């Protein structure tokens, strides 16, 4: 289990991370969210031991993270951290050996991963010759080649098409099943929603929202009502508790302040015609994120 306890990090006068605490249990996926510059990368760098926290402590299974445990960690950086002049095979041997593995074991696992990601033919190709998506696959393999106990994924789906995203998701789920602790960061909220049981949203290094995703959504008072049929939109907009009415091609979405206003909206809808749907849903993580961060989220 990874434990981050009251961690603060200063860069000179600038506080990059402010009293951050969370824990990732074995077999769980944890989301670390925030806009650019929120402190995610600094937090990741502290977890893998590249930076020392100014205050607080980080432990993995109760031990401080140092070079005696880094062999059990896998890290996928947001930028391509590959030596592009090497071949795929050389690159994976390089990073695998740094994880304390022997070449035979590395090559065995590499073949399995290349087969799984359908890039077997690129084994002896130089990384710079690969497409962005295939480079990302190689980077993913380099992060998981040691079957890590703690897997840190910073924007893992960057540059991938939907089919390959699904392929990665499947692989990540497998690590979860094996009991690895996974920390995940993404700008794509739908990915976070699909994966993370727990999350933290960072704003300027400080946690503004944390906890179990289900509970966060439940606690979030605003709801969305999806309606299909002919409804008086002006009447809906004038209804108490309605924040916004969005008219799409196939449906109308009514955003309300809280549960108690559902009935009032329903009263207006009842007066309409051809109503085929009236459903109340929790807000999306994207909405919660935007409301907490208070600015447009960069995709």
């Amino acid at each position, binding site marked *: 289990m990874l434990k981050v306890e009251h961690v603060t990090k200063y860069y000179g006068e600038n506080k990059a991370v402010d009293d951050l605490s969370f824990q990732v249990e074995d077999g769980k996926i944890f989301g670390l969210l925030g806009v650019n510059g929120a402190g995610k990368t600094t937090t990741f*760098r502290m977890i*893998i*031991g*590249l*930076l020392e926290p100014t205050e607080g402590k980080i432990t993995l299974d109760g031990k401080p993270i140092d*070079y005696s445990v*880094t*062999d059990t*960690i896998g*890290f996928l*950086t947001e*930028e*391509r*951290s*590959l*030596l*592009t*002049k090497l071949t795929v095979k050389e690159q994976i041997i*390089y*990073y695998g*050996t*740094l*994880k*304390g593995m022997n070449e035979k074991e590395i090559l065995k696992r590499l073949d399995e991963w290349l087969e799984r990601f359908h890039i077997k033919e690129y084994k002896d190709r130089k990384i710079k010759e690969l497409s962005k998506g295939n480079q990302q696959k190689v980077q993913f393999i*380099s992060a998981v080649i040691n079957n890590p106990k703690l897997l840190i994924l910073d924007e893992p789906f960057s540059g991938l098409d939907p089919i390959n995203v699904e392929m990665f998701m499947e692989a990540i789920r497998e690590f979860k099943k094996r009991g690895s602790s996974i920390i995940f960061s993404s700008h794509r909220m739908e990915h976070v929603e699909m994966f993370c049981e727990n999350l933290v949203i960072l704003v300027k290094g400080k946690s503004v929202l944390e906890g179990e995703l289900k509970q966060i959504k439940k606690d979030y008072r605003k709801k969305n009502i999806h309606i299909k049929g002919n409804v008086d939109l002006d009447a809906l907009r004038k209804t108490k508790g309605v924040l916004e009415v969005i008219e799409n091609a196939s449906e109308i979405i009514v955003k309300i302040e809280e549960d108690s206003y559902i009935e009032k909206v329903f009263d207006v809808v009842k007066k309409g015609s051809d109503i085929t749907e009236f459903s109340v849903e929790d807000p999306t993580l994207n909405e919660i994120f935007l409301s907490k961060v208070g600015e447009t989220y960069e995709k």
Partner: protein
Amino acid sequence: MKNKLKFLTKQSLDKKIKTKWFKGVNILLLVLFVLIMNIDRVIAVFGGDFENQITVYVKDDVNIYDSFAPAFEEVAGSLGEAKNFKLEKTEEDIESLKSSLENEKEKIVVHILPDEQNYMKAQIFSYDEVGTITTQLISMSVNSVKSSVAASASGLSNEQILALTSPVEIETILTNPDVENKEGQDIVAAGVMLVFILPCFFLIIMLVQMIGAEVNDEKSTRSMEIIISNVPPKVHFLSKIFASTAFVVLQGLLLVLYGGIALIVRNVLGGAGLAAVSGEVTGQLGEILSLVKDTGVFSLLLQGLPIILVLFILSFIAYAIVAGVLASMTTSIEDFQQLQTPIMLIILVGYYLAIMAVQFDGSLFIEIASYIPMLSFLVSPVLFMLGQISIWQMLLSTGIMTVFTWFIFRYGLRIYKVGILNYSSSKLWKKMFKSLKQK
């Protein structure tokens, strides 16, 4: 962690030597070595006017041809031009000789005439421009004969003339019994040492540039983060130092090998034939070695060689440390190229001081420079070979270099730790000075 250091060192070394470029450059170096060593033969293969034999017709009005001919041959031989000139006596009148020169570039007429005041004088007739060597050759031969004629006219016997024209023998006797007579040793010694340090000069330039490129490559691709999350910066730094030092030592040995091959090729091209190559090489090398041995340079070199090698390797390591630290501070290879300029100048200063040591015998300034780390490996061995410093003084230079290398590694590592994960050039120097205080 030892295995990871070994792996990183091997990886870094492989990156340098297991490339097409390394192989290509080394093939090119071998070809260049062979070409340089055989440049005279290459020039000869392409030919030119220099190949043509010049016939010198001598019209002798003073009756000295019998003395002139051997004098001419002797001078031509001493100038290495014996094959290029042919001497012939002529009785033709000067006007017909002059007209026979029309369009003849390989024909010269020398007319030796009596002179009342100076015994004799000479005229050279040529259709085209007369080369410097030709003029010099004729002038030296005529003057040589003139001395003999003048001595003979003074009534001196042949023995007296011979004694008068023979070179004066000069013997140097040193009155200090503790000082050996090492005549000619300084030039030979300096020559031997400069042959050693010139490749070192180039190797260090290569070393500095390679470390810069490698560290910047790892930084710019962010693979540095993955590497440093698995191995401590100290191990990473050491791997770069070991790999680059091993590379320059290997490249240095290859250069020595290329020199040997070039020498063998020279003998083969010289027409000796493969069977005779071994003997010829031995002969030629033997000549060089005997010169080195006769002047006492060989024993001096053997005496100082272990220390010189240690000093060289320590200097490679020190330059690798400095290059690594500077590379860690920069965020692109362009920045590093600017930052490496002072290193290049330091090496250049050392190289010039080493060359100037021959000219400025006993210079205190150069002796002090021989103790200064980063310069000492270029200056100290040359001064030792010149006999200007003792082996103990060279040992002192090595000691200073050892302490200096340890010192820059200790403090350089502090900068390296911070520098390799720094991607911003903002407040760079402040950050680096601050890092010096962190343990």
